[in-house]
């Protein structure tokens, strides 16, 4: 018996007597004998709390986290500071341990949080309606594709090659079932190639997808890209970085129908990739085809303001095979962190943080541009992330550079060659507010040294060969 159950010998006897059986085994008699396991699971014995803690601490110790090194990794998830207050609020039993607010009278806290979250996301994106969050960013983009398919029943998606590679792939995976063609439009000098974009879009296109900023950190001209798609009646889906939206034009002002994105940078931990939340906002005409939970305002029997889950006839538990999505729950706890974070930043703080990222990123970009063997991949405006190419002969060389930097306690960024073979020597560098000027100066030194070492080793190998 673990400490999580409470049945003593005396309890057991009394309970079995009440039920009218002699043993627990009798309660399992409906399982045919041949299907009973008849042995203990082949798993280790249970451990005490202190032993489990030690084991999990040891495993944590085998990871190099952003606590352990100076981390310039981004590429979809970012090492922003999570205020202490968020840890406290997320740890509260009342937020941590309930489920979906099926009984609104005792779930007003969670429902109001959803309502506030929806308000904040509408403000950020400039769109009319938001749901209460979905799993995470890439699958949110795929969900937007399903909304488009339900809306116009067309058979083709067009997606910019600048959209996060995981989102592009999730779209392909999840639309394969309903038989959608997915065409990609290449990048030109770091942004979506406008001519190729226009050429790819015709009246058979259900939706187009663009990333803002795109995976290379570049700011896309979303308004221009939208206009082309709208001329052909396609829905425009923008996958936006929410923290950049203090600086960048709201997608809703740029002709976008659905704005989705990864919410991790809003008060959520890195957690090796999840859980975080995805946001999903749209123009009001799409509200009845949106996936996921939506909170709405109403009144109680005495006229008090209150909140409920609403427009539920969209959802799987009612519409079943005709539902707008199979999704059941939101990422309520992560979305709570998101809305609290946005309120913590506040109206001015969001802009100030954006400006800080823009200035430090510009500084870092200039500084790395002066490092021997480091060249910019594009010259487009950026907010917090930029792409450079290292003169080290491709992905293997970049990975060795990462190893050399790791030995000095620094992680210079994401090796672009992992997902963009055309930028085999690329490195994607992210600058959050946690990376000071001193950190950036150190990045230039450590990365410069690593690239130089890699180049001289390659030269030596080349000479001896």
């Amino acid at each position, binding site marked *: 018996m673990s400490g999580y159950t409470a049945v003593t010998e005396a309890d057991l006897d009394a309970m079995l007597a009440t039920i009218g059986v002699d043993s627990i085994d009798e309660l399992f008699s409906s399982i045919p004998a041949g299907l009973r396991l008849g042995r203990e699971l082949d798993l280790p014995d249970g451990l005490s709390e202190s032993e489990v803690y030690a084991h999990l601490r040891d495993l944590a110790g085998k990871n190099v986290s952003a606590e352990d090194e100076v981390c310039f990794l981004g590429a979809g998830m970012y090492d922003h500071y999570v205020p202490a207050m968020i840890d406290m609020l997320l740890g509260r039993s009342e937020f941590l341990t309930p489920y979906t607010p099926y009984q609104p009278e005792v779930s007003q806290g969670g429902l109001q949080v959803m309502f506030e979250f929806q308000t904040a996301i509408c403000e950020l994106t400039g769109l009319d309606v938001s749901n209460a969050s979905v799993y995470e960013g890439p699958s949110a983009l795929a969900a937007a594709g399903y909304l488009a398919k339900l809306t116009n029943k067309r058979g083709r998606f067009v997606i910019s090659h600048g959209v996060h590679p995981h989102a592009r792939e999730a779209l392909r995976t999840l639309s394969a079932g309903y038989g959608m063609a997915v065409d990609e439009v290449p990048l030109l000098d770091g942004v979506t190639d406008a001519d190729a974009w226009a050429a790819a879009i015709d009246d058979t296109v259900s939706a187009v997808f663009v990333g803002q900023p795109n995976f290379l950190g570049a700011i896309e001209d979303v308004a221009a890209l939208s206009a082309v798609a709208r001329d052909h009646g396609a829905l425009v889906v923008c996958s936006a970085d929410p923290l950049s939206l203090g600086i960048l034009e709201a997608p809703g002002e740029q002709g976008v129908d659905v704005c989705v994105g990864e919410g991790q940078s809003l008060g959520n931990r890195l957690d090796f990739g999840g859980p975080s939340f995805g946001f999903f906002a749209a123009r009001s005409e799409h509200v009845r085809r949106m996936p996921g939970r939506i909170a709405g305002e109403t009144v109680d029997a005495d006229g008090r303001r209150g909140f409920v889950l609403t427009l*539920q*006839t969209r959802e799987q538990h*009612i*519409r079943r095979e005709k539902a707008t999505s199979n999704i059941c729950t939101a990422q309520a706890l992560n979305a709570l962190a998101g809305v609290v974070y946005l309120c913590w930043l506040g109206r001015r703080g969001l802009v100030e943080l954006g400006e800080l990222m823009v200035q430090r990123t510009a500084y870092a970009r200039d500084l790395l541009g002066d490092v021997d063997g480091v060249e910019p991949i594009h010259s487009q405006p950026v907010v917090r992330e930029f792409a450079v190419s290292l003169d080290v002969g491709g992905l293997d060389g970049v990975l060795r550079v990462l190893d050399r930097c790791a030995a000095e306690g620094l992680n210079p960024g994401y090796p672009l060659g992992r997902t963009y073979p055309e930028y085999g020597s690329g490195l994607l560098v992210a600058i959050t507010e946690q990376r000071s000027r001193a950190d950036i100066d150190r990045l230039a030194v450590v990365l410069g040294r690593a690239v130089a070492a890699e180049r001289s080793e390659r030269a030596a190998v080349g000479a001896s060969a």
Partner: protein
Amino acid sequence: MAQETYPADLLYHAEHDWARLEGDVATLGITWHAQDALGEIVFFEPPTPGTQITQDEPYTEVESVKAVSDVIAPMSGEIIEVNGDLVDSPDALNEDPYGAGWLVKVRISDPSEQDALMDQAAYVASLA
């Protein structure tokens, strides 16, 4: 909510729909029984005028808070008018299902289809 009634001047379909025939135009709606089973109706998806509808086939949906119901066409024809007021006040479907709660007007294509529908007495008997 309205009192339970089934007017004598209407024709009824077994899926709890009614038709009021005036020449070659039929006004369609759902019966008191249908709205009562659904509960408070919160949404009506207005079909597009010009759409052809077919007897016994669904032509639109109405929604309550926790249910969606197909609305079945009692007769075939072309939709010539839609009750747009229901978009803003779907509660009319509950409060006045045979009046303000009408759904569409249809130019019927086959008057003989009315032979398949029930009169008031037959419909009321079918509910028992």
